[in-house]
């Protein structure tokens, strides 16, 4: 059952949410749109194409302290980090919601990540269906759609008079304000996307593991961490202890398989020393290891990496290359 919230309704609703919860919403920062906790509803950028970073940072922040250890009068005290408030992520697109769902596969399987679990359970997702498809978008090829409500608690769709409110979960239902009119109009057709063929990517990936393709592709790769940090499904992190005059803090921060120091072991051994091996790791994780473990490909087709890569390593091209190379291989 769909409801309709006028623009004013929505603002009042968000305002009331803001009273009791942290609200994470798209905010315009110079020429970019970022998910940030807001203090006023006016800060929200309703009119945006896509955010530079996905909302994953709310659940897995770029940096967070896991716990601190301190020595007080001979006693050693460990204080774990806590999630203190409920939150709402507002304005995420269906692809981002799917990204969070994919992260769940890893973080919520037992033993689950306590901090992540805590944040996830205390956060509701109020999404926005996409108004238009961007040239880099390919979500429909990755199991999502511009109007896919699957992983949301509530999905809003912008229409002329306001927003269609589609309540998806019980958690969502509890958040919907009373008194919204029912929406009886037509649900607008979602924008059309060009589909890319995705058949056999996993098997192609497996077959081409030792192919020189990776070294060639990596030639132009700079091995920055941009693709991983903008990606809604990349969740690697590094953990380190900081000691400051006796107070020790365990911190985790984002890390990416593209950096040379990633998974460097204490003895100095680095499992992936060449550029090709590192780049292959990225795609192997997305198309091979993750689906082997959790069924789905770890890509939601948001196109952020396509747009952000400084040297245009286009994941869609990689998929197509893999398929072509496999055909060539099997053909020969």
């Amino acid at each position, binding site marked *: 059952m769909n409801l309709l919230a006028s623009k004013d309704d929505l603002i009042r609703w968000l305002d009331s949410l803001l009273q009791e919860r942290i609200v994470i919403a798209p905010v315009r920062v110079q020429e970019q749109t970022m998910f940030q906790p807001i203090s006023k509803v006016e800060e929200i950028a309703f009119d945006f194409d896509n955010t530079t970073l996905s909302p994953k940072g709310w659940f897995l922040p770029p940096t967070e302290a896991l716990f601190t250890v301190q020595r007080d009068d001979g006693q050693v005290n460990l204080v774990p980090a806590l999630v203190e408030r409920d939150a709402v992520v507002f304005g995420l697109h269906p692809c981002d919601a799917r990204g969070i769902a994919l992260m769940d596969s890893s973080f919520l399987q037992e033993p689950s990540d306590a901090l992540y679990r805590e944040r996830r359970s205390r956060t509701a997702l109020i999404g926005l269906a996409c108004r238009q498809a961007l040239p880099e978008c390919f979500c429909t090829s990755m199991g999502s759609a511009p109007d896919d409500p699957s992983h949301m608690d509530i999905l809003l769709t912008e229409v002329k008079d306001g927003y269609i409110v589609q309540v998806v979960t019980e958690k969502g239902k509890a958040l919907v304000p009373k008194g919204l009119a029912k929406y009886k109009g037509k649900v607008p057709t979602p924008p059309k996307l060009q589909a890319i063929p995705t058949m056999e990517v996993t098997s192609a990936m497996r077959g081409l593991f030792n192919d020189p393709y990776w070294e060639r592709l990596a030639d132009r790769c700079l091995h920055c961490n*941009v693709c991983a940090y903008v990606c809604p499904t990349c969740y690697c992190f590094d953990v380190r202890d900081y000691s400051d005059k006796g107070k020790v803090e365990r911190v985790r921060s984002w890390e990416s398989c593209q950096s040379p120091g990633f998974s460097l072991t204490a003895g100095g051994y680095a499992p992936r020393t060449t550029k090709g091996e590192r780049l292959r790791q990225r795609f192997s994780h997305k198309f091979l290891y993750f689906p082997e473990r959790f069924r789905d490909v770890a890509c939601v087709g948001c196109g952020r990496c396509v747009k952000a890569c400084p040297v245009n390593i286009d994941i869609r091209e990689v998929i197509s290359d893999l398929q072509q190379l496999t055909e060539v291989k099997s053909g020969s």
Partner: protein
Amino acid sequence: MDMELIQQIRDKARNLLEEGTVEGVIGYERASDGLTARPFFAYEPAAAERLIFDETCIHDLVKYLLDKKGKKMAIVVKPCDSRAINLLLNEEQIKRDKVFIIGVSCPGVVETSWNRRSETLQARCRTCQLSKPLVYDFLVGREVARQAEEETYSDITEAKAIANKEEFWLEQFGRCIRCYACRQVCPGCYCPVCFAERLEPLWVGIRIAPEENRVWQTMRTFHLAGRCIGCNECERVCPVDIPLSLLNRKLEKDVKELFAFQAGLDPEESPPFATFKKDEKLEFGA
């Protein structure tokens, strides 16, 4: 697009590959958006046909030479990029005889990002004095007399006048996600282990936080003092739009004024931190 120029590049690249003079040619090809350019490595003579050159070829390819040490490579080099060549020659990171430089006389490049290109020249191109690369083995393109605008560093003057500079910069650095794209793209950044990722000593923690990021960005820039060749690739690749040129250009300006030095103009001249003058006047007053 200057097809004649592109043909010259392709012909040269093909020749070099056919003759076996080089193992590969580093140049540009059309990006997946069909609109802009991206770096391209040609290893077979036939691949030379993919090479292009136009005003969207903004990347400084010289950085890639560091990946190909020991291999003889040809590389397409714009006048600005040639300063990176000189820098790396000065710092003994590349050997001149291992590089075949296809120099391009470039009328300037425009701002681009994926699927988007502007029509106006990049700011650095407007003040560029070089009509052709400072060093090359083969020159393509027409050498045009440049009518460079005067470099006034008005952006630096403005940034100096910001009321609360610490607040301004901590806000900028606060956005940094430490993806290190700025470092990875920089031809002057080639330490095996960057100070930011060293464990002993731990100069910069893995905490992605404004104060931590400030140490990172300040020292990154300072390591490039007198070495930054002004390609501005760092600012271009920054996914969160930190105005890195305001940092690099501030030091560029100071180095020029204090030490009369500009990086990459002469492979023989050493950067300012390699030397000193006994009688130079450097004030430490307020």
